[in-house]
């Protein structure tokens, strides 16, 4: 850390070369993080402990034009999710069953018609998330067409929608007569159209862990959305909407949430194969830059509905169901560590759930 420079002859020793902390942080991020994390107790540069996640705030229905929206801010990461419903008319000759399932198996006929293209609806289903990293949200992502991160995120969110089956597809159907005859006649009613939901996620500010924030924003926005009641008008042969927005989208009872961990290698050991590493919950972008492994867990905890919005802590005795695990890069996270991460994920999901329950739904 010191540089020898020729000094004029003299008795006084040159002052040792020192860096200000901010300079050290810039020029040697790996060492800077390592110094923090090897400290006892380990503290991250942002002052959090490794298992601590950032505080977050949630505001729903702040966008007046969208059918539903949410703003989520976790630390310096801020995302807006707006939901826009559009009516998809089932044209004669279209097979409605291909919209009906979250995982539609490819048939040879649809395969020949091109399983992609065609407005995105044929393979993308009815719920289409899209992520945009706005200009200036981070220095790393300049203006231009969506880069690798935005595309990967869009696809991950799309997969999350499919995996969680969050939205009841029944609430997206538009039947030919909506006279409130009840669901018993559902089989005889003909599906005339669907609501297709565009989930547009805009990242205003990016400071790591955008997946968790984006997914939380999507869940919150879907929960707050109100669509106009659409019905089929037989005389005009068109779908009409009422002006009033009072048709909620029905979601699952137990909402699943994602939690992301980043693994920072600590290359202080001599043996390169067995280097130690430390897991950080909810990494910021500085930590993500140094991370070699990313672990994302999607889990649901079933809360007792009687307890309403106050899940008990600790969460022992509650059933936690894992719906998705994604671990990429590196080789340091073992199976046992995944198990211990699940507890952190569960408690984070509970916090998400609580804050979502506090948010008042829009007046009908």
């Amino acid at each position, binding site marked *: 850390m010191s540089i020898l420079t020729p000094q004029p002859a003299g008795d006084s020793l040159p002052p040792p070369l020192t860096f200000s902390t901010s300079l050290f942080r810039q020029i040697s991020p790996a060492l800077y993080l390592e110094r923090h994390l090897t400290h006892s107790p380990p503290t991250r540069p942002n002052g959090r402990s490794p298992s601590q996640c950032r505080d977050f705030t949630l505001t729903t229905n702040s966008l007046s034009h969208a059918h539903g929206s949410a703003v989520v801010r976790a630390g310096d990461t801020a995302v807006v999710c707006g939901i826009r419903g559009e009516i998809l008319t089932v044209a004669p000759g279209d097979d409605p069953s291909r919209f*009906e*399932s*979250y*995982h539609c*198996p*490819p048939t040879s006929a649809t395969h020949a018609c*091109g*399983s*992609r*293209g065609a407005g995105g609806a044929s*393979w993308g289903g009815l719920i289409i998330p899209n992520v945009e990293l706005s200009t200036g949200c981070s220095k790393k992502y300049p203006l231009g067409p969506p880069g*690798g991160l935005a*595309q*990967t995120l*869009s*696809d*991950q969110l*799309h*997969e999350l929608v*499919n*995996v*969680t*089956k*969050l*939205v*009841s*597809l*029944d*609430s997206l159907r538009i039947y030919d007569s909506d006279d409130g005859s009840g669901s018993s006649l559902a089989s005889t009613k003909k599906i005339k159209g669907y609501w297709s939901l565009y989930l547009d996620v805009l990242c205003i500010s990016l400071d790591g862990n955008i997946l968790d924030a984006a997914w939380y924003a999507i869940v919150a926005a879907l929960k707050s959305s109100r669509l106009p009641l659409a019905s089929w008008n037989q005389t005009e042969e068109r779908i009409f909407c009422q002006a009033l927005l009072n048709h909620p989208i*029905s*979601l*699952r*009872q*137990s909402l*699943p949430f994602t939690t992301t961990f980043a693994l920072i290698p600590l290359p202080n050991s001599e043996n390169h194969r067995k280097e130690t590493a430390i897991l950080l919950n909810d990494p910021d972008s500085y930590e993500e830059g140094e991370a*070699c*492994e*990313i672990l994302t867990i999607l889990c*649901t905890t*079933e809360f007792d509905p009687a307890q309403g919005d106050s899940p008990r802590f600790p969460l022992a005795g509650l*059933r*936690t*169901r*894992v*719906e*998705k*695990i*994604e*671990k*990429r*890069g*590196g*080789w*340091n*996270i*073992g*199976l046992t560590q*995944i*198990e211990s991460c*699940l507890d952190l994920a569960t408690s984070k999901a509970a916090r998400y759930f609580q804050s979502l329950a506090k948010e008042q739904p829009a007046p009908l």
Partner: protein
Amino acid sequence: MTSSPLTPEISLNPLPQSDGSCQYTCPTSRTTILTSVNGPLEVRPKDELPNHATIEVIVKPGIGVAGVRETRLSSLIHSTLQSLILTNHHPRTLIQIVAQIVQAEDHTSLPLLLTPLLNCTILSLLIAGIPMRTVGWSVHLAVLQDTKKDIKGVEGQVFKLAKTGDGDAMETEGDEQIVVRNPNSEILSLAKSSHTLTFSKEGDVLLIESLECSQGSGGESADGQGWDITDFLKLAEEGKRICCEEGVEIVREALGDRKVF
């Protein structure tokens, strides 16, 4: 070549122009992947890293132009290879990997494509002589939804794992989960969850891509889906065994007397 439902068909160096290439066919779903590796090459100044090699992964779809799914696949492969390849051995160079999906049952299904892509890429890296820390192998497992239903044509692919009791018997589930290795799209559509597990030769976890994939119309009917973590850990242990024993054996056999490792 072979007709076993567990052994993939591998042909090495089908492309004479590249440094290393491999064609891999999944025995059951007939997903065929062709990969080529070139490197170390000259790197574009923009992507140059001062003390590491730049890894570029391009996944080309069989139909149409590359979309978000291909970008995601290539980023998954990229992050796995980043830790496998000893990038500091060839600083300021480019290692370029191109994977072409030649044939697939479902060109948009991530779980069906990921395992063949990873295995094929790793084999072609070995052929190209790119220095790697260790060798990995990927396996795709599907847990079936209905434990009672018999599915034809999966003999030899199925194994059973005992399930841990949930305590509250709220569902009439069997006490074991039925796991199918190398499922094709037909079996995957019957599955409850799909797990792509990649382990290194030493048994370290390289990649996990596990997701719930049961059919359904969503909403409240999807409540209570998912799996228990202990069930998953059992499955992962089994996956580790498959990768470390059979996977390494497949690689060794495929490479034959090439003396790569």
